[in-house]
């Protein structure tokens, strides 16, 4: 087989939900593939995966081994507050979402039941609305944990919505804690300690 120099190919769109099966992505490249072999680097729709496979010109649909990078989830948001010196009420942090990604995560009912009591419900509802998910009920009680439907929604909001790029904003001072590549940077400046 003739070896071709890798050429960067932009993937314009991929449906995240249908994309993954055991970390193998089926990318339909459409026009983007053209007739050149290339290395897919990043999906410009959601900006979250990298491939190690090479494209051939024969077909535009290829399977790739990809890296799934997970981002800040709402469970993390629910646990954190602004800890700047002098701030009395740093919770909940407001979310400035520049890029939101949804990822399928294995469902674990026991974990959800365990963590339920530790979650500030109102903050979770607000945060998931900011991220574009408004299926959560405003009021909850522990008896709802018996309902599979509720658990699925809770699971989705808590673990499957990821903030990729954006910021967490202190509700009192407006200080922004940047979130880049899904990692919130909670370190304080010298004058905030």
């Amino acid at each position: 087989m003739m070896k071709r120099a890798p050429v960067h190919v932009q993937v314009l769109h991929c449906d995240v939900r249908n994309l993954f099966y055991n970390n193998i992505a089926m990318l339909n490249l459409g026009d983007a593939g053209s007739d050149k072999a290339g290395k897919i680097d990043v999906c410009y729709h959601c900006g979250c995966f990298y491939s190690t496979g090479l494209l051939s010109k024969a077909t535009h649909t290829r399977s790739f081994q990809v890296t799934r990078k997970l981002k800040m989830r709402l469970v993390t948001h629910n646990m954190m507050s602004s800890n700047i010196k002098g701030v009395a009420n740093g919770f909940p942090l407001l979310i400035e979402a520049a890029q939101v990604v949804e990822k399928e995560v294995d469902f674990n009912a026991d974990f959800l039941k365990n963590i339920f009591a530790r979650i500030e419900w109102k903050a979770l509802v607000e945060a998931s609305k900011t991220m574009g998910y408004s299926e959560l009920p405003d009021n909850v009680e522990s008896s709802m944990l018996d309902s599979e439907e509720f658990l699925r929604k809770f699971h989705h909001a808590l673990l499957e919505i990821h903030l990729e790029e954006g910021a967490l904003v202190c509700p009192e001072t407006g200080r922004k804690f940047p979130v880049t590549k899904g990692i919130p940077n909670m370190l304080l400046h010298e004058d905030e300690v």
Partner: protein
Amino acid sequence: MWYLCVFFHRLLEYRKTEFESLAGLFEGRDGAVTLEWRLPEDHHPDSPFHFVNLPSEELARNIANRSILVKGIYELWGEGRNFEELEEAIKSYPDDRKLPYLKPDTTFRITVETFGKAISFHEQNDRLQKLAFVPFKGRVNLRNPGHKFCLMDNDDYGSSNGLPPVVQRRIFFGREIGASDRKILQTYQLKSRKYLGPTAMDAEMAFLMANQAQVKPGKLVYDPFVGTGSILIAAAHFGAMTMGADIDIRVVRDGRGPDCNIWSNFKQYGLPMPLSLLRADNNLPPWRSGLKEVFDAIICDPPYGVRAGGRKSGGRKLLKGVIGPYTVPDDKRSNHIPSTAAYSLVECVHDLLDLAAKMLVMGGRLVYFYPVLREDDSAEPTFPEHPCFELTAKCEQILSYRYSRVLLTMVKVAPYTEDIELAARVKHLDFKENHLKWLEDGNLHSAVFSPSDVKINGSGEKCSSKPKYRGKYV
């Protein structure tokens, strides 16, 4: 029932504690578990052979299969000083315990093990022939047997095995109930892991830490000094949900590129990704004030200033008082890189205990390494204490002539009260005000690396006063 437990001859202090932690895990007990142990006649406590009393065979199997340091747990069919005694013992062992495993429709395998001496294949066969009196009716299957038997011999080989000589030879024969799966150590070995840092935790030790923390599926494990994630990987292997934080944003966010970072390490082993990674300072953690009792275990290797030093926010010049309070100009805020200051070990451990006391569930476990200087004259070292915690295990691993590290396992036994929180806050301010004093107090680096003041003549004597025979410290 009493079982024969044979350990691997390494990390000696970790062996029984790992065993007892796993007993607690499978019996659903949070606190310290103390089992009944007995040594074979004439054996030194560091011997790999031990008898242990366990309520059921199922528990024995679970412990052995999950453990890292148990070579095997056996139902002992007989022991003796020589083959005549062994034969007599096996013959007098009740038939109803033996016959089900000797039936015609079974498959079996017998292995010959020795301790402290290697024997040739020919000698192994000779010993197997001596077992001819046992009525094995099944078929031999070396690769995938239904029942495994083991003949273990430990001769009076002298002191060459690193242990005080065993006065009497002892031979054991038993049926294997379970054994450690050391293959996972191959799978997770550091040299084939993609993203490594200078202090990445060795895979064997990381698994031992996870076992000490009684990690199991559905539990939430946190590492406040996550680095390259080597401890969380072990926890995730055992099914835990993981969370990590680090003050160094380069390791948690960037790694060495898109295919070489913490996420890629988890992916390499097909493990579920951490629940979250964040950049945060252990000295000023970002957790909201009402949040408590969320983590089931906190496992970490705090920076103690020998191979890697800890950092905290605040700025070194600021805390030393060299410069006055500093305000970041508004136009510089968005890309400002805050300066950090050295973080003394005492303060780091204080913060860790305070965080753990607050954030662990009742019965949750804090597992971490604590460095100890190996002074000749020092008595038993003192370890950190906290009103919420009970120290259930301490296992030493010697790192150099000067110092060793001790794996501490603490169990949360009392709730985190307002009084404790207040005391912790007062202490936090004290650390901040007397930054320099605390930094000098706990300076391990100079103690470990400063030139020795011992004269060459005297050092020979000094060496011999420290126990360092191979068995104990390998």
